[in-house]
């Protein structure tokens, strides 16, 4: 048997998993316009359920029925019925954030329900995974390979049967081809979408159960990591073609294994290319395929436009109320700072400093997502670039951390530009997927090097000294963080109030309209992306100095995802939203420490914020900002009832232009 075949054969089972992921993604995307980032989390949840059932002594067929036949489709059905159906007409950004919320929340929910035990030897579905059943030439075929290929083939046959020979399949194919045309013929698109989500859920759970025994331990990040390969396979099919996505998955698996065989063993080329391969395929597809440059159109011509933003709480206040709240805010801030530098215990000062440093990183999300409507899933990676640059410069060249912070910010901005140029012109989805793949790639390939993050050991980063003033003391460092946070906030506020902010507002509302009034959309997007990456880099460098030692684990890809849902839930459109998110999240994390580990902040907060992000389509201003508006209105009404003059909005210009609502999507559950 030729060597290339020997190398390539083991790639087929792996490719089958990629293919199942790709088909599930394409099915949901084409019928509902949702790119389901939570697919990996669904797969993990099903695999966990299968594992728990088998270890509880259930027969495998019963565990299969529960996890794949019932749970997977039911989860898909629930996602459609209670979430995605209601945001079909929402923007790509809103849909992506909703799926991101699920991706964050589902694995931690399983931790609450099933605990966090080490789960060795995930069971195989039908055959003994390690037994050799027959040989193909010199290649021995094991149980896990037979079951993976066999079950995938069976799933494919069912799918072909459904699509080729049933009325429902015909309708689904029609929806894939032209959703608007299908609706004109009176077909219930909701029902078609529901079936697609059920099938997608079944594919996710099947992929999960098949994938699990490939690894010795059942770990959620194995599933998320493979998502990039599934996305790359889906991209080969243009995110629309099921057969091509399927073939792409198999092809990716095979080529990946062949590369492993022929590249020089142990070389950086071998390791880097194997890790980077799905990322490269994805980027090439995003750049090369013309069909991907246009996001999938759903059945609403206004779908590419964001829902009109509701008024911010700050715009509702009249002059006297505004004056009163301003005085109150300054007083509280003064007391807060005074307390921090005098009596608050050191560990809480440190937590507050952490919160402020993360607020700076979160401001980068405010700028990118809140103001320009773009989504980056690599903000923690950009923060890592800034942190490691500052640390390495301080270590090797004795450069001050403050100067290193600027250099780190510039480096992060440069990396941001490199990523933004090929992906930004293709829209929100491409940017989100491109940055997600980048975060995985940089986290696993670049950061572990000794010249970057130095693996598990990490690097030491000193505290700064400005003239005679040392920031070694935590209270002094708190003040430094406060100053830098204020400066970064001022930059964001000035941008928002200036020409760029107005252009971004136009861009966020409608890209086409923005370009018709002379806005250079591409240049503007790249500039904002670079600025956002730079701010994240500065925040990362400051974080490194606060911690005094950082490692790649501080900037892992999953933190980027968490950052987005935390900021979106708190309020992505305002500076105070980012600050509330940063300080609030880290304070809550500490406060919730008294709870048992299974319900501690590290588990519960991602669930709460992940679920909070599901409401983004309904409350793009963020749940906290929404509550602030509600309470402001209540306070104003109470004030009016108590005999004050009826409140009228401030005559001065609000921070955001208030556009009347023409359509609000219904509740998202």
């Amino acid at each position, binding site marked *: 048997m030729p060597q290339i075949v020997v190398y390539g054969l083991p790639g087929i089972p792996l490719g089958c998993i990629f293919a199942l992921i790709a088909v599930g993604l394409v099915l949901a995307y084409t019928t509902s316009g949702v790119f389901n980032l939570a697919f990996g989390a669904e797969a993990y949840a099903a695999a966990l359920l299968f594992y728990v059932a088998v270890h509880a002594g259930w027969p495998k067929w019963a565990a299969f029925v529960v996890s794949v036949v019932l749970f997977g489709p039911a989860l898909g059905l629930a996602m459609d019925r209670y979430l995605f159906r209601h945001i079909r007409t929402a923007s790509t950004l809103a849909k992506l954030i909703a799926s991101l919320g699920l991706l964050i929340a589902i694995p931690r929910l399983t931790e609450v329900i099933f605990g966090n035990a080490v789960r060795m030897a995930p069971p195989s579905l039908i055959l003994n995974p390690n037994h050799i059943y027959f040989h193909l030439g010199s290649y021995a075929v094991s149980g896990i390979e037979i079951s993976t290929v066999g079950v995938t083939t069976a799933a494919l046959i069912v799918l072909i049967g459904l699509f080729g020979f049933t009325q429902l399949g015909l309708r689904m194919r029609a929806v894939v081809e032209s959703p608007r045309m299908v609706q004109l013929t009176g077909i219930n698109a909701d029902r078609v979408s529901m079936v697609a989500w059920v099938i997608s859920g079944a594919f996710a759970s099947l992929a999960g159960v098949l994938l699990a025994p490939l690894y010795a*331990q059942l*770990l959620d990040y194995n599933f998320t990591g493979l998502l990039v390969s599934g996305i790359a396979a889906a991209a080969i099919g243009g995110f629309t073609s099921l057969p091509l996505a399927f073939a792409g998955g198999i092809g990716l698996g095979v080529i990946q294994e062949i590369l492993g065989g022929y590249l020089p063993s142990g070389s950086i080329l071998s390791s880097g290319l194997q890790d980077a391969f799905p990322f490269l395929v994805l980027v090439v597809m995003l750049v090369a395929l013309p069909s991907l440059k246009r996001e999938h159109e759903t059945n609403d011509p206004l779908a590419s436009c964001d829902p009109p933003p509701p008024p911010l709480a700050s715009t509702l206040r009249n002059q006297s109320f505004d004056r009163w709240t301003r005085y109150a805010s300054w007083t509280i801030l003064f007391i807060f700072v005074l307390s921090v530098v005098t009596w608050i215990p050191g560990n809480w000062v440190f937590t507050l400093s952490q919160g402020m440093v993360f607020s700076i990183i979160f401001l980068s999300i405010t700028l990118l997502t809140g103001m320009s409507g773009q989504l980056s899933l690599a903000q923690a990676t950009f923060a890592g670039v800034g942190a490691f640059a500052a640390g390495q410069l301080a270590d090797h060249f004795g450069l001050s951390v403050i100067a290193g912070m600027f250099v780190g910010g510039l480096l992060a901005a440069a990396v941001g530009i490199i990523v933004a140029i090929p992906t930004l012109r293709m829209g929100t989805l491409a940017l989100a997927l491109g940055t997600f793949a980048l975060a995985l790639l940089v986290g696993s390939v670049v950061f*572990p090097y000794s010249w970057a993050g130095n693996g*598990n050991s990490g690097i030491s980063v000193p505290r700064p000294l400005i003239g005679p003033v040392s920031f070694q003391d935590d209270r002094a460092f708190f003040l430094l963080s406060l100053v830098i946070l204020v400066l970064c906030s001022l930059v964001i506020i000035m941008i928002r109030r*200036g020409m760029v902010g107005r252009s971004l507002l136009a861009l966020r509302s409608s890209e086409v309209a923005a370009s018709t009034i002379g806005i250079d959309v591409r240049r503007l997007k790249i500039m904002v992306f670079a600025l956002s990456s730079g701010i994240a880099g500065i925040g990362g460098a400051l974080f490194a100095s606060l911690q005094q030692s950082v*490692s790649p684990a501080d900037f892992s890809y999953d933190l980027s995802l968490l950052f987005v849902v935390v900021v979106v839930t708190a309020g992505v459109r305002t500076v105070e939203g980012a600050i509330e998110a940063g300080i609030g999240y880290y304070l809550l*994390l500490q406060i919730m420490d008294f709870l048992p580990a299974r319900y501690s902040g*590290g*588990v519960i907060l991602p669930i709460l914020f992940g679920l909070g992000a599901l409401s983004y389509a309904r409350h793009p201003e963020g749940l906290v900002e929404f509550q602030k508006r509600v309470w402001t209105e209540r306070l104003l009404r109470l004030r009016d009832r108590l005999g004050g003059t009826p409140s009228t909005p401030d005559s001065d210009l609000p921070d955001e232009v*208030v556009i009347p609502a023409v359509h609000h999507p219904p509740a998202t559950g």
Partner: protein
Amino acid sequence: MGKMRGLPVRRGSNSLGFRSCSGRPMVSLIAVLSIGILLSACSNAKAVYSKSGNTNGVYPHKIVVGALASLTGPVPAAFAPAIDGAKAYFDMINARGGVDGRHIDLAYVLDDASNPAQDTDQARTLVEQDHVFAVVPVATPSFSGATYLTSHDVPTFGYAVTSQWDGPKNLFAYDGYVNFSYPDPDYAFVAQQLGDHRAAVVAYDISSSVTACNAVVAALRKFGIDVVYENLAIPVPASGLTAAVQRMKQDGVDYIASCMDISGDIQLAHKLAQAGISNIPQLWLDGYSVSAVHTYGSLMNDVYVFNSNVPFEAAAEYPGMAAYINTLHKYFPTARPSEVSLAGWASADLFVQGLRAIGRDVTRTRLISAINNMTDFTANGILPPVNWKYNHSGEAGWECNSFLKAVDGHFHPVFGSSSPRGRSVFTCFDMPQPATNKLVPIPLPPGVPLASTSGSTG
């Protein structure tokens, strides 16, 4: 429908929204100069370590300690058993009346959720809020709180998986510090014992794994084992192992050294079986898991592992190990003996031995100093003696390990040493190795636990 306002632009703003500076070049100049002056005045502060000798957490009838471990998060509860081990030990000591009339109260167990930022936070909480005297044990893959605990001179004991444990005099890894960058004689020793001469070495493409296996490659070559296949760039999670195994087969490899985790190692074993070469002996750096060997059974046949303590399988001959297993079972009936749990137990034992050495006058400085003067800590006969005068920097002079072979779902101790004093599961080597190319185990150093004895007390 309300009115739609226009998009107002404030006068005097440039495209970024800042006030235009075009008419005021002096302002720009001053701004740039200010930043320049600020940056030129910047440098880095030197870390100041406090030597407090503090007695926080020390009361007339108890000493309060805290633990720091990864109990939740993306890394599963692999580190949680360390808490059980330490608690079991403290319960046993307290049942016997405590240490010099004081009970040890493991009052706080904080979770860093496998998040380095939270690890530092929790270390601070233990010291500044909970006012613990010491941290016993630490068990986390990202011990970023080490910097803080060192700067505050807090006695800290635990399970070392990162290099943060290397150096600081207040950090005590339960089995002493092992410098992974030294050429490691254990891999060459096993190859020599089995008569193998053509080795393959595999590691993940992460620095800790690569560093460990670089030392393995150096040692194998130094002692005459031909490294015919070297792949220190396996992605995590492991993939592409089929190609690696095919190449091993082509190159006639008769011995495999792995620095991957057990997940990658199991995959490697599976691929070897698939290629029909499962009889090639393998030595795994991370593989001493009783539950894994039970689960994978014959797939792990011909797998060797080594570790720094008496194996659980030899408990019948080592009372110290039997005491650990029995006590763990007594206080935590569902817990299984494991390396991590043992690390918690031995950490607690080191802490208690230190307290006993200083008597009633308990301060952090005195405790740290007392432990750093210990030369033969064995955790009641389950570890080769750790000399804390040198062990913070890995200069102990020799290293001992026990070796085990997996056979049909069980580990069995192999090799070992004999001396006029008795027999031991441990095999010892000079560290670092002398310049000679001959790998010869050294005679058992004094204090190494011997079989069927009561073991030396630490």
